[in-house]
């Protein structure tokens, strides 16, 4: 089937396409434009709007013999049907003759536009979609130019219907194409919006509470072919033609979704240029045309008034603004003096250039440079990470995906979406997780385990794939499926694991892949679900987390330099260590808990204010462009580092981020072939987005700024690693639970909280406990509890969930109870004081 092709003639042009191609797509491939509203190349066709009507002529066949009939000149006789047909629902046929722009076809298309406009408010002058609206576009191209419908007979409907906090519906503008409802149902399995009523009263409503409860809701506004769905972010904020576009990479998670940032000089921001909205930028191998709501809406931190905008120095226990000159001098002197007593800690949010420069500076001074992100295994990703040419969209029947110790829906939603779609196409999904996640319903095998047990389960699976005898029964079918898979991708995370445990999990996963031969080729290998967008870049630049814990690494440091990391936020006890250190410098966006303990604080530029490259979990290096002017005196991290270096006597050639990247390429073998030019290379991918014809019928952006390059493996894979780490047993004593930090997409991190519209969607401040444990511990749903752990005490609400494994409590990160890794904690109800 896949190899078969069909040849037909569309508007006089002969087209050859794979059998099964829809006529509308076949025409597009030939450069012929058939107008559509409801059709979307990423959704199942429905044929609702009837805009794509064309005349189809089919070769006449003899009824008896089934043979083609010919006329006197030997040409096949072509028969045109009595009706126009929808080209979006019709797969092409051999020898067809299709007229897309005949008088009859054009007349039909014109009539559909006229019908659509009878109910449309034509409020283009105040519509956010105006200027990039498929309905406007197709009205100009195919409409009659004037309406025969009496204006007074138009229906008037609600124009400000919040479907949730993020998305507004204008009922008058809706043309009932069902793109949004189909996206929610087919693509992201969140059927929380749908049609209600019928006929002209047909309208979109939300079924969920809170409204439009989906991590992908913003995508519906991109694919809406009219101004019916708009985001709370952009609604009434700007006209599309006033916006500037710049290519960027999402700073929130290791997927590395390609973005287009739309900016404008904003009157209510003192005339500053600010981000007006974030749109997906097409990259079929990364995010296709989708992004999650965190990526779309959590950008207001860039304009937060709490951003650091000038260097600060501590004088008499008070913060004083100072000049860069002074700050750099003080820092350079202190770090130079510290020598091998310097400890540098950098976070995975920084770019490759920043992290490279940071490592070079700290190494150059004889100090020790660490990665702040406490998850292990980046070294194994370098060896057995997915091969160049990997595209999760290619996984399907005969392939397998293993997801271990990770909740992809919360940690990397677009990976969740692409894994889910691979399952829809028939790929086998095996899950090794201690608790239920949103992937469970798509899994062919779900292997439960204890928190911390994942590495040993993966090792057992690996053994089982090699020799099926002696495999525990519960692993048997999964081992068989994984071994038989043509392609195998393993996602590993760190849920329930300390740093050494996630390192062990990476080793176990690498061993599994190596032993079964799923390495070194496209769509095979390991994908780490890192806590940050560029943790992999950190490993690639030579940084590693400490396995002994940050506290011991900082012990006795003479100077501490922290870049883009806030370890005190996760572990308040580190504050004492920072206080004790002779000198601390923090370089960040905000005055974090860590920065409060510093001697000097240096303001860094946010991702959108500077250029840089980032490496995704799939080891794709991607370029992000400068979009916003700098905020105050903030400088890019790499520049600050190199300026300190110059004063401290470490030589940096780098005058620009481009030349610095050249140094990266010269120093890091895997990056050897990369340049800013090669990272900017692109080719037009199918389906073509964002062209003048708005074929995609939405406002997703085409990618003309670079698809990025997936790194090749320069290190030898070698022998499969032996996994030595085993978890220390943690049986909860009376009154104890294992407190397990878990990631939630809309966390209360510093880059999320400043986006006001997300306020109601942020992770609630509570821990989640199994009802059975609640009985044992006397905890009640919704009531407060006291947590005692490592000598610190916290008060927090308790929520009971059946899905939480017994003996444990889930602690969402960033809600105010610090925790780096799973810890036993004493949990008691808060006793109300007896009132007399």
């Amino acid at each position, binding site marked *: 089937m896949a190899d078969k092709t069909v040849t037909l003639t569309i508007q006089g042009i002969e087209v050859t396409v794979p059998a099964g191609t829809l006529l509308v797509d076949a025409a597009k491939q030939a450069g012929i434009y058939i107008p559509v509203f409801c059709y979307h190349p990423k959704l199942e*066709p*429905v*044929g*609702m*709007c*009837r*805009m794509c*009507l064309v005349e189809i002529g089919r070769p006449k066949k003899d009824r008896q013999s089934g043979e083609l009939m010919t006329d006197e000149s030997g040409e096949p006789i072509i028969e045109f049907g*009595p*009706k*126009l047909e929808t080209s979006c*629902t019709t797969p092409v046929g051999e020898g067809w003759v299709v007229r897309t722009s005949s008088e009859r076809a054009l007349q*039909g298309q014109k*009539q*559909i536009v*006229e*019908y*659509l406009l*009878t*109910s449309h408010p034509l409020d283009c002058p105040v519509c956010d979609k105006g200027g990039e609206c498929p309905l406007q576009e197709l009205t100009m191209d195919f409409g009659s130019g004037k309406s*025969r*419908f*009496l204006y007074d*007979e138009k*229906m008037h409907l609600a124009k400000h219907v919040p479907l949730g906090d993020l998305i507004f519906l204008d009922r008058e503008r809706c*043309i*009932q194409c069902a793109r949004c409802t189909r996206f929610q149902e087919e693509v992201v399995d969140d059927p929380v919006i*749908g*049609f*209600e*009523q*019928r*006929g*002209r*009263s*047909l309208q979109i409503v939300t079924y969920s509470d809170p409204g439009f409860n989906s991590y992908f809701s913003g995508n519906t506004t991109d694919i809406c072919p009219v101004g019916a769905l708009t985001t709370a972010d952009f609604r009434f904020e700007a006209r599309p033609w006033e916006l500037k576009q710049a290519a960027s990479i999402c700073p929130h998670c290791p997927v590395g979704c390609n973005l287009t940032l739309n900016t404008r000089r904003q009157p209510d921001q003192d005339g500053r240029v600010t981000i007006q909205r974030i749109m997906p930028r097409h990259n079929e191998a990364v995010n296709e045309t989708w992004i999650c709501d965190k990526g779309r809406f959590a950008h207001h931190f860039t304009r937060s008034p709490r951003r650091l905008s000038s260097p600060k120095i501590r004088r008499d226990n008070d913060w004083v603004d100072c000049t860069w000159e002074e700050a750099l001098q003080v820092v350079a002197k202190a770090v130079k003096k510290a020598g091998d007593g310097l400890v540098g800690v950098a976070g995975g949010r920084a770019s490759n250039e920043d992290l490279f420069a940071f490592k070079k500076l700290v190494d150059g001074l004889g100090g020790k440079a660490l990665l702040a992100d406490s998850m292990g295994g980046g070294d194994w990703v370098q060896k057995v990470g997915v091969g160049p040419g990997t595209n999760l969209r290619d996984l399907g029947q005969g392939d397998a995906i293993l997801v271990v110790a990770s909740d992809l829906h919360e940690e990397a939603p677009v990976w969740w979406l692409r894994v889910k779609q691979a399952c829809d196409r028939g790929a086998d999904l095996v899950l090794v997780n201690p608790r239920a996640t949103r992937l469970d319903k798509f899994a062919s095998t779900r292997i439960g385990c204890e928190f911390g047990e994942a590495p040993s389960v993966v090792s057992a699976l690996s053994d089982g794939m090699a020799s099926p005898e002696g495999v525990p029964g519960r692993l048997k079918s999964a081992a068989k499926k994984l071994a038989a898979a043509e392609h195998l991708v393993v996602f590993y995370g760190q849920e329930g694991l300390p740093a050494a445990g996630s390192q062990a999990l990476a080793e176990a996963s690498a061993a599994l892949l190596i032993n079964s031969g799923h390495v070194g080729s496209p769509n095979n290998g390991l994908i780490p679900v890192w806590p940050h967008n560029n943790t992999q870049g950190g490993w690639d630049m030579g940084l590693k987390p400490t396995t002994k814990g940050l506290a011991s690494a900082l012990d006795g440091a003479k100077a501490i330099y922290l870049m883009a990391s806030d370890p005190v936020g996760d572990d308040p006890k580190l504050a004492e260590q920072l206080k004790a250190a002779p000198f601390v410098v923090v370089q960040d966006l905000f005055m974090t808990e860590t920065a409060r303990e510093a001697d000097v604080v240096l303001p860094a530029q946010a991702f959108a204010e500077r250029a840089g490259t980032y490496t995704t979990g799939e080891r794709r290096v991607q370029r992000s462009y400068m979009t916003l002017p700098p905020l105050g005196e903030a400088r890019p991290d790499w520049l600050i580092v190199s300026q300190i270096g110059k004063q401290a006597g470490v030589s940096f050639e780098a005058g620009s981020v481009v030349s610095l990247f050249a140094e990266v390429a010269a120093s890091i073998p895997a990056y050897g072939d990369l340049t800013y030019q090669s990272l900017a290379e692109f080719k037009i991918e199918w389906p073509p987005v964002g062209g003048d014809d708005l074929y995609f019928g939405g406002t997703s952006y085409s990618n003309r700024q670079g698809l990025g390059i997936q790194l090749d493996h320069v290190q030898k894979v070698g022998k499969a690693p032996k996994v030595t780490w085993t978890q220390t047993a943690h049986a909860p004593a009376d009154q104890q639970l294992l407190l397990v930090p878990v990631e939630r997409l809309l966390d209360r991190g510093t880059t999320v909280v400043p986006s006001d519209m997300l306020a109601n969607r942020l992770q609630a401040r509570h821990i989640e406990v199994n009802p059975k444990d609640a009985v044992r511990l006397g905890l009640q749903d919704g009531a407060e509890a006291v947590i005692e752990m490592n000598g610190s005490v916290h008060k927090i609400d308790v929520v009971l969930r059946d899905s939480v494994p017994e003996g444990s409590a889930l602690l969402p990160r960033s809600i105010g109870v610090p925790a780096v890794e799973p810890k036993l904690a004493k949990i008691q109800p808060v006793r109300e004081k007896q009132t007399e």
Partner: protein
Amino acid sequence: MTEHIVLRHRDIPDIGQLEVYLKHGGFETFTDVVKNKSPQEIIDVVKASGLRGRGGAGFPTGLKWSFLGKAKPRYVAVNADESEPGTFKDREIMEHNPFQFLEGVAICCYAAEANHAYIYMRGEFWDNAARMEEHIQQLYDRGFLGKNLFGAGFDLDFHVHLGAGAYICGEESALLESLEGKLGMPRLRPPFPTVNGLFSAPTVINNVETLTNVPLIVSRGSDWYRSFGTEKSPGTKIFCLSGNIAKPGNYELPLGTPFRELIFEHGGGIPDGKKLKAILPAGASAPILMATDEVLDTKMDYESVPNVGSQLGSASVIIIDDSVDISWVEYKITKFFKHESCGKCTPCREGTYWMLHILERIHEGTATPDDVDLLDSVAQGVQGKCLCALGEFASGAVVAGVERFRSDFDLKVASQ
């Protein structure tokens, strides 16, 4: 008509009681079929009988059954959503001859190798549905439904499902959507329900009247059945006669009976000394006919009615006398279709809305002479562009009304 095939309660009193039905050979056919016949034999008999779907489209029933996909499970869905204006035949069958209908469903299930039948009844039939549930329970009690029927290894369950009052759910694919708990909207075809129907399984969907014919066709044979009606439209048909007629009601007559005979012999002609002006041969869904001699002499079968520019459809014949303004008729019809349009496809959703506005203006006397042409143009624009037949019916009604009774419209706008 000497003998009724479907409206047998008119010949046999109390056949609506199971005891009486059994006394007259009820369920003997089904028992024999399950014990002694193969599904293919049943399909062959029905095919040979020439029985055609009585829901309106007239598709050969046996042929439909033979198209069933091979996958299992399979389902039978009975279309008891009788909603066509002027149609009240299925209701009479289900109220008065329910067991013959249910036996027909059972035989159909056996032929289709389906173990479940869903009887989809329009929401307004709630009282009828409650009785249908009782009848079905009686069949379980008597061993005509349930597991391992007659020891022959055939399981059969019937389920009654009530709609929520949408005309569109009489369209077979919308009916399936509704049965699945979704909004009643037609599906794209292909795939057809026989291959991919209810819950994506091969599904036979037949009308109540169609299936009620089946027990007698199977027991008495296709030749007997073919002794009624015409060659291409064999058998009898219930004609639902209503409107300006002396004796409205259901008439089961051989297919091919001329309009004239139905209206003047059986229906007793036009009352109050008025003259016959127009005929709606299939409720609101087929183009209106001028009551010319040619039309009156036309045989009411699936081939002849199209020859004079309309359809036999469900044969709900609405008679209109010369006191009626056809622009008013079209106004009412359009109001109905606008109300019932599901809204899925643009031309029907917007076209019915627009046509109704123009007809409202004509009806209220605020239209201009140009509005009649506009109405015609809007209706023509809808034609041939819709996802299902509803929009085609709605626009076809208006196009035919304006074409055949233009003067009624012109009079209305000229008199402003």
